């Protein structure tokens, strides 16, 4: 240590409120641990939630419809979405994009070629092209095209293969085979009809429906529809976080419903968020108190050495020298406190990672970047507040 500071140590006694300083330090330590745990728990939970679910996608899609209740049966207009409703949905912060699912207003029949004796009435729906996850060249249609690209729900193929085909003694088919099957599609209304070849271009998990390009749907609805623009009864939403409690609350409030599987995490998330927030809140309150006690301690030291400080300044001690000396009494204390808190959280994280690994849940054994940033921010905050206090009371 600089010899001048050694002499200052004898003049400015910092041992005066040792117990108070100890309490402030302990408070700071506990506050930091709570805050860091809260942040780390948040990181871990996010990792658990999104690490497994959507590994390749940054967004998820929800198909939303109004709940069909007994009172609504037979009144299909009650399950329709108006333009205003779609607008309201689009304005929600958790909705990245939203679009109508347009359903066909004409009769559709499909027949499989050759020996597959397959003939069925069916329907089509379409969504804006940006919602389609089968992105390829084939996904387009324009007037005059003979071939209609179609996307089937994965579930549909499964139902056929494992339910229908086995029981009816029909051959099971692979996705590739289906893609190569030209399906005869007849679109009609009354006596008016057209023939197309349906070409399966992909399978989707997102939207459980038979999808055709929006261009075809518009054309066909126009030509074979009943002339009225029908209000759609399903809406597709693109969201980055289907477990967002705000999203679930919004759907509940408006009587909408969606694939419950996708939003099942929202309750867990809500509970974890609450617990984490409470811990974080206590951490912040405790941090504020620790800062207050630190400031009072500094004030006490300066007040108790007022005469000595005045004489030191009179003899030529620079204010910066006094400030540096006083900070030197505290800074090592916080740095050590900070390191201990970080180490403790790191150990907890490691233990938690091992414990969760036993249940096949993977979290990083190291604390996340958020925790490190928080630790540095807290230390900087303490330094800044103390520096200000010293500056204020020295003058």
């Amino acid at each position, binding site marked *: 240590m600089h*010899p001048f500071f050694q002499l200052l140590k*004898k003049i400015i006694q910092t041992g005066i409120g040792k117990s108070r300083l100890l309490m402030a330090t302990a408070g700071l330590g506990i506050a930091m641990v709570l805050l860091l745990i809260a942040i780390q728990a948040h990181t871990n939970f996010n990792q658990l939630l999104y690490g497994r679910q959507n590994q390749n996608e940054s967004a998820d899609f929800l198909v939303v419809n109004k709940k069909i209740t007994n009172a609504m049966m037979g009144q299909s207009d009650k399950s329709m979405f108006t333009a205003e409703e779609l607008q309201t949905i689009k304005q929600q912060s958790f909705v990245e994009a939203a679009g109508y699912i347009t359903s066909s207003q004409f009769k559709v029949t499909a027949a499989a070629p050759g020996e597959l004796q397959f003939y069925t009435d069916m329907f089509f729906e379409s969504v804006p092209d940006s919602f389609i996850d089968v992105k390829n060249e084939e996904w387009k249609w324009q007037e005059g095209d003979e071939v209609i690209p179609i996307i089937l729900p994965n579930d549909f193929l499964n139902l056929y293969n494992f339910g229908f085909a086995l029981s009816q003694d029909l051959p099971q088919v692979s996705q590739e085979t289906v893609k190569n099957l030209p399906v005869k599609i007849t679109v009609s209304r009354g006596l008016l009809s057209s023939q197309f070849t349906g070409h399966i271009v992909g399978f989707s998990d997102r939207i459980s429906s038979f999808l055709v390009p929006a261009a075809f749907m518009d054309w066909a609805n126009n030509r074979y529809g009943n002339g009225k623009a029908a209000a759609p009864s399903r809406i597709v939403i693109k969201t980055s976080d289907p477990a967002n409690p705000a999203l679930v609350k919004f759907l509940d409030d408006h009587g909408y419903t969606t694939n419950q599987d996708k939003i099942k995490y929202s309750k867990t998330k809500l509970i974890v968020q609450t617990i984490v927030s409470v811990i974080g809140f206590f951490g912040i309150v405790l941090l504020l108190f620790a800062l207050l006690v630190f400031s009072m301690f500094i004030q006490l030291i300066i007040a108790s050495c007022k005469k000595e400080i005045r004489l030191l300044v009179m003899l*030529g001690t*620079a204010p910066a020298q006094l400030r540096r000396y006083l900070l030197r009494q505290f800074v090592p204390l916080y740095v050590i406190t900070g390191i201990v808190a970080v180490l403790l959280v790191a150990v907890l994280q490691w233990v938690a990672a091992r414990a969760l690994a036993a249940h096949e849940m993977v979290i990083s054994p190291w604390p996340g970047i958020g925790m490190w940033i928080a630790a540095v921010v807290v230390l900087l905050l303490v330094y800044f507040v103390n520096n200000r206090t010293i500056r204020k009371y020295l003058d």
Partner: protein
Amino acid sequence: MQIQLSHLVPLPLRDKLLQRVSDIWNKEVTFSPGSFIKIKAPSGTGKTTLVHYLYHIRYDYSGKILVNGKPWQDYNKPALAAIRQQQVSIIFQDLRLFDQLTAWENIELKRVMGPSPACTPEQVQEMAARLQVTHVLQQSARTLSYGERQRIAIIRALVQPFQWLLMDEPFSHLDEENTRRAAALIAETCKAQQAGFVLTDLDDDVHFNYNVQYQL
């Protein structure tokens, strides 16, 4: 470093002082660098007040004190500290040592306060030996006699670099022999540092070869 006084009058003594003739108060005075200046003053004419004005720890005056052409008020705290560490040293009339430090530490405090000490610890020991206070160096300043404290204060003022030394009755509690030794040490150190001093006292004396003498 030049010090100029311009119509300096202490506000509390204003009426009293304006009735008497003074070489300093309400005059234009310039202290040129390196001069040995004696200011003689009867009690109650503002001797200590003047020293405190010159050291800028009292400010209740009218007129101006210009240091290198700039009034004291224009110097901020860090600049003032730098001046007190490197250009202006002082021996207070009431000494102002730290009771919680030893005599040695009191001297050391001033020696290591600035960026460049003016002398080594060995030189401090030498000075202490010359003023016959070696035996009290390790004692707490609290336990020293006033004469010993005065000599410690003198040494403390000499261990830093300075261009001006302000002294307020520096020998008031020293016998003739010690006064002679102290004056010789101060004169030598000032010469070595090419510094001047301002000394205030009640009576005439022959301790130094003064360049200028003023009557306050």
